[in-house]
């Protein structure tokens, strides 16, 4: 059934993760970085579905992920009663984006949220009621939420439309970066400027992984090296930025619960990486007439 190697590997990873989470349920093992595994499992499920069943179904798993992330975000921010229409609009932007990805309508995908949702949501907010105070804050909060948690994650979906293997490369690299930073945090007491040592630890590993995967992703080796240098930096920048937002929300690392920062915390490494890597690959593959 699985004639080629990579498909088997993805299915194996998926099965391992499933088995691990079932065992965890049964024996009630408490694991600090539980949520990372959950999202890895979700992504691997998406890839398995897209490889074995159909891409069109797998993309809706990503929609569910966007929904969960956005739901947590709106739980954390302080919304007024009249922002409800705007938030409904934000939730509705997810299926539209997913449909554009399915249709391979790149132009619509790329402008639907930054232009149409961006303009429509403030209008919906003003329709909701007559209270004026705090309008600017609400518009900012809601628009930022969909940009970060729908649009940026949506790029993973479009990348997997290009080629599932590029998306696998992205997810695997980010997961490895996360893993290295967790390991370093456990082993070493984090110094003050510890983004740099973290970067220099993970960059060689990422370069190697990208080069190894290049057989299936079909990215030329030069670009593989560039991506390997770029991804850890983007992950570090993303983690650093989202950390500030989390702190403003009052999320504390010792009490991460779904609905109280767990989803945001687990996805934060993807948020900066996905769009930039996607556009990098798209630009150079267009220039070279396809990788």
């Amino acid at each position: 059934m699985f004639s080629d190697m990579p498909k088997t590997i993805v299915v194996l990873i998926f099965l391992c993760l499933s088995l691990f989470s079932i065992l965890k349920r049964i024996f009630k093992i408490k694991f600090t970085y539980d949520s990372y595994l959950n999202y890895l499992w979700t992504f691997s499920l998406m890839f398995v579905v897209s490889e074995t069943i159909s891409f069109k179904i797998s993309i809706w798993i990503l929609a569910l992920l966007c929904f969960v992330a956005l739901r947590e975000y709106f739980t954390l921010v302080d919304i007024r009663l009249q922002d409800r229409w705007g938030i409904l609009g934000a939730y509705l932007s997810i299926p539209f984006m997913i449909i554009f990805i399915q249709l391979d309508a790149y132009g619509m995908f790329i402008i639907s949220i930054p232009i149409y949702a961006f303009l429509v949501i403030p209008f919906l907010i003003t329709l909701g009621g007559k209270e004026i105070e705090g309008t600017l804050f609400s518009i900012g909060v809601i628009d930022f939420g969909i940009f970060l948690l729908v649009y940026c994650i949506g790029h993973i979906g479009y990348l997997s439309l290009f080629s599932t293997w590029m998306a696998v490369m992205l997810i695997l690299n980010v997961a490895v970066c996360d893993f290295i930073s967790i390991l370093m945090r456990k082993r070493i007491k984090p110094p003050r400027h510890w983004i740099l040592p973290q970067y220099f630890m993970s960059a060689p590993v990422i370069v190697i992984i990208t080069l190894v995967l290049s057989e299936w992703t079909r990215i030329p080796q030069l670009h593989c090296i560039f991506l390997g240098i770029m991804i850890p930096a983007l992950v570090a920048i993303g983690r650093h930025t989202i950390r500030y937002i989390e702190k403003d929300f009052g999320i504390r690392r010792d009490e991460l619960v779904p609905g109280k920062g767990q989803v945001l915390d687990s996805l934060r490494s993807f948020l900066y990486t996905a769009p930039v890597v996607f556009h990098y690959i798209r630009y150079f593959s267009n220039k070279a007439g396809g990788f």
Partner: protein
Amino acid sequence: MKGLSKIFSLRLLINLFLLRPFLKLVFGINVAGRKNLGALDRYIIIANHNSHLDIMLLFSILPAKHILTTHPVAAEEYFSKWKVLFKIVDYLFRPIWIVREEKAEDPLKGMKEKLSSGHNIIIFPEGTRGIPGQIGKFKTGVGRLAEEYRDVPIIPVFLSGPEKAFPKKSAFPLPIWNNITVGPPQIFMGASLDITASLEKMIRELSESETANRHRRHKRAKHSFVLAVLGIDGSGKSTLSRRLSIRLSDSFKVCLVSDNLEFYEDEKQKEVQPLLTEKLREAVGRYAKTAKSLKNYKIPKMTELLLRDHIMGEVQRWYSPDIIVQDGCPLLNLTAWAKLHKEKYFNADLCSSAIKILTGRGGGVRKADHIFEKFPELAVLKRFKLTHMKLPDAVIMLDIDPSISIKRIQSRGERKQVHETEEKLVKLREGYLIVCNSVKKEFNIPTRILDGQSEIDKVTASALEFFEEECKREPANG
């Protein structure tokens, strides 16, 4: 056979396999303290009520064996507006319908029947869905019920999230996480009213523990009404401002900026966190009072006044009182004191442009203006960017004959300050009067000149009258 039909009851299945997954998938539920519910067989659940989701959320945390034997209390006339909805709710939750009418016999009858037959009930003691995010006053029924069934434990539950997910008056629910905090079961011994009160307190405590670390939008600090009391030394302005603050504090939060910083609420003085700047100002003020000549007095006094003005901002920021009563406004004092130092130049025109410069509105005053030659202090203040002093919202001037004020000062028995001689006080009084006039004319700030010689009670009464007039006019201006 009966047991089997109980297990395969459609109601139970819908609750377990349709409603619960739906709530979890769309809204998301976090439960804290579920073990408080597990070990009990009979209980009364009380919860705050904000939304129609509340009943569904509470049902979703019940142990499966209790789903069929638990009944929420709901108002009949609300749900009976829609026949289909009424039937669905009636089927799924089997509520105890309450008729909110005067005529109804014993409103607790239905609940008592259920409790006597060993069933559990869910009560929302607020009676109705209140203002989102606020806990209303509890009705006394729950206390009476607890008094009668002392052996049934009461479980307080606090729900947060439904007030955002599906508040009153909203057309549709939004997917937003709900947090359910289950408190420890309680058994009460006291009278019914005490029980109600302590239950309300318990829910409030749960609410504080739950929402403590949630992100909140910063409220814009409200603007405090600043009332300045002017007057020469010995005119009784300190006494007046203190009395005024105490009298005003029956309905407002009042802060008195005098030689000390005092905070009044409900006609009593309140302890507040001390400000560091205030301590500094006190020290400078003490030093200024020991000065021997007017020249030595000038710089410490100016520093003190600038610090006092700075404190106004800090008071607004940290204590946010409704009214700030100032014993002498730093800006106006500074201006009036010019009369003492540079008598020959001082007039009404100059006074208003000096105030303009000091409040940072001196855009129209050019750099080469002769005012800076006459008062080099203004140039210095402008150079160091200290020209952002605040004008008060209302001014009360206590006018008094300097000869009387000198007598009052002598009767205090304290050491005299440099300027406290009759000749200088006459000048100072003139200065204050000029300042008051120009403030009234140029800046449209309500000003009242009161007679300081009359009795203090009379003066306080007329000052209060003045304040009330101005307070009424304030919204019209804004």
